């Protein structure tokens, strides 16, 4: 007989303890670096190198933020604004376009539909970084490198968004409802924006967040496209500062505070939208 008898309470306690230890150690692994970043951003330059890394010394957070705001005419906050524009507006428009295309692929029959979908799927597998160099070459033909648009426009395209939108639209918008809307005399476009969009909302939030993160984290495209720091997203700006730490030691504090402030918006966005993306995240894999 290989049947395992119902386990005694002691064994249960052992596995429970083991499980909680794994969870606890993992929590430390994931959160201690962020705790360190927070602590470090409250220290002045002398304390950063000389006091215990994981606990407070003199609380200098606001002085550090002041120094950050003053450095180079507050270019840091310009970078934050750029990142919010690139990622926020880019993901918003990108999600709209992906939703419309995915919806059409799910809900309408037209010749070439499968070909279009397969080309888009192939696009998911093409690494975005492989596009950065040719995009730079194309934009330089039009003297359009080193502009806001050279980073913004390519960020609008999300093949993975179309893929998700198609799956979500097929699952959440019933054909009967569309027929009913047609009988009521609603046009296809209006039906999409009034009825279908609402049914697809959890999916759209997921697509939006995915694309927001992808644009916010994108490094190669801005690195290769941009020269003037007024167009930099915050990641590229902090990277550029970090390369100067050895020449300008006082900039290290700014890198640390800047890094800490830059991750706050994304963490807030995730926490506040989590009831949406939690439902949507697994959908790409469940076919």
């Amino acid at each position, binding site marked *: 007989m290989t049947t*395992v*008898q119902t386990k005694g309470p002691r064994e249960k306690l052992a596995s429970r303890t083991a499980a909680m230890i794994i969870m606890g150690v993992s929590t430390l692994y994931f959160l201690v670096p962020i705790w360190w970043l927070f602590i470090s951003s409250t220290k002045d330059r002398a304390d950063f190198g000389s006091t215990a890394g994981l606990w407070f010394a003199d609380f200098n957070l606001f002085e550090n933020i002041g120094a950050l705001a003053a450095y180079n005419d507050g270019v840091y906050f310009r970078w934050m604004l750029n990142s919010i524009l690139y990622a926020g507006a880019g993901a918003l428009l990108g999600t709209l376009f992906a939703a419309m*295309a995915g919806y059409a*692929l799910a809900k309408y029959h037209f010749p070439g539909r499968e070909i279009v979908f397969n080309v888009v799927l192939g696009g998911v597998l*093409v690494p975005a*970084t492989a596009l950065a160099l040719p995009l730079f070459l194309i934009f330089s033909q039009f003297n359009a490198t080193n502009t806001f648009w050279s980073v913004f426009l390519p960020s609008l395209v999300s093949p993975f968004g179309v893929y998700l939108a198609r799956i979500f639209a097929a699952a959440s918008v019933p054909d009967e409802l569309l027929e009913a809307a047609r009988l009521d005399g609603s046009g296809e476009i209006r039906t999409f924006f009034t009825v279908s969009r609402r049914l697809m909302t959890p999916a759209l939030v997921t697509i939006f967040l995915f694309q927001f993160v992808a644009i916010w984290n994108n490094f190669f495209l801005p690195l290769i496209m941009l020269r003037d720091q007024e167009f930099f997203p915050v990641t590229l700006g902090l*990277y550029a500062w970090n390369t100067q730490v050895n020449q300008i030691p006082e900039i290290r504090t700014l890198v640390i505070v800047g890094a800490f402030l830059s991750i706050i918006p994304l963490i807030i966005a995730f926490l506040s939208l989590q009831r949406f993306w939690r439902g949507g*995240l697994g959908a790409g894999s469940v076919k």
Partner: protein
Amino acid sequence: MTTTVHRTPVRHKRAIAIFVAPFAALFAVFYLLPIGYAIYQSLLVVQRDGTFGPPVQVFGGLQQYILVFQNEAFWASVGRVLLFGAVQVPVMLGFALVLALLLDSPLVKGKKFFRLAFFVPYAVPGVIAAIMWGYLYSPNLSPFIAVTSEVDLLSPQTVLWSIANVVTWIYVGYNMLIIYSALLALPSEIFEAARLDGASQWQIAWSIKIPLVMPAIVLTAIFSIIGTLQLLAEPQVFRSFTSSVSSTFTPNLAVYSTSAVPNVNLAAAMSVVLALATFAMSFAFLKFTQRKADK
């Protein structure tokens, strides 16, 4: 009685066009065109009239590809990311799978907290995470100086694995959530039956849950493979912390430094080779796992 009027070919042509057009146009201009342009550029070579003559681009066939295949630094970088991926991807996905199974088991309390805590690093961009870990690794600024003063985590021998840790730190929670959502979607009756038969949590996880969430694990594996071959931000940042990361450390760094020479034609050929390799590897992995599943 359902009245699905069977579609006479293509109703709502205008609506379909309006829905598809914006994405299609952007996809064509910023996805397909660059791919075509990269291929075109990769087929050109630069010639000069004499030593000081103006450079002219002429058609050179596959010459750039021959140069790519002869480029030792490029292949060393490919080998490096393959080694990286062969170790880091299984470790990361194994870690993510264990956490997802624990979250899904009755053994763990406070699931909501753990789920969020593990996911937070995903909100940290690669550049920022690399800056942060760069200081954590540093021999004299790290809070773990007891470790970092003994072991040089930024030496040529260790830096690849130090970068692997950064990537793992960012993506474990994300992959865990994908697997966890797939676990939540499984019908619980299956486990009830197994538990009544006396199966332990381990047996349930190993023989029932893991096989059923395989599609989710395959998806995370493919995205991880794509991500590994594209490694750029983390090693590029580490170049400010250590000289152990060369300008051709990963294939994308090689593309970047070659294009900065500037030798755009060779860099374009490298991009094409890299894109094809990525495409081929994820496709092969997908087919391989599908065939295994069919058996």
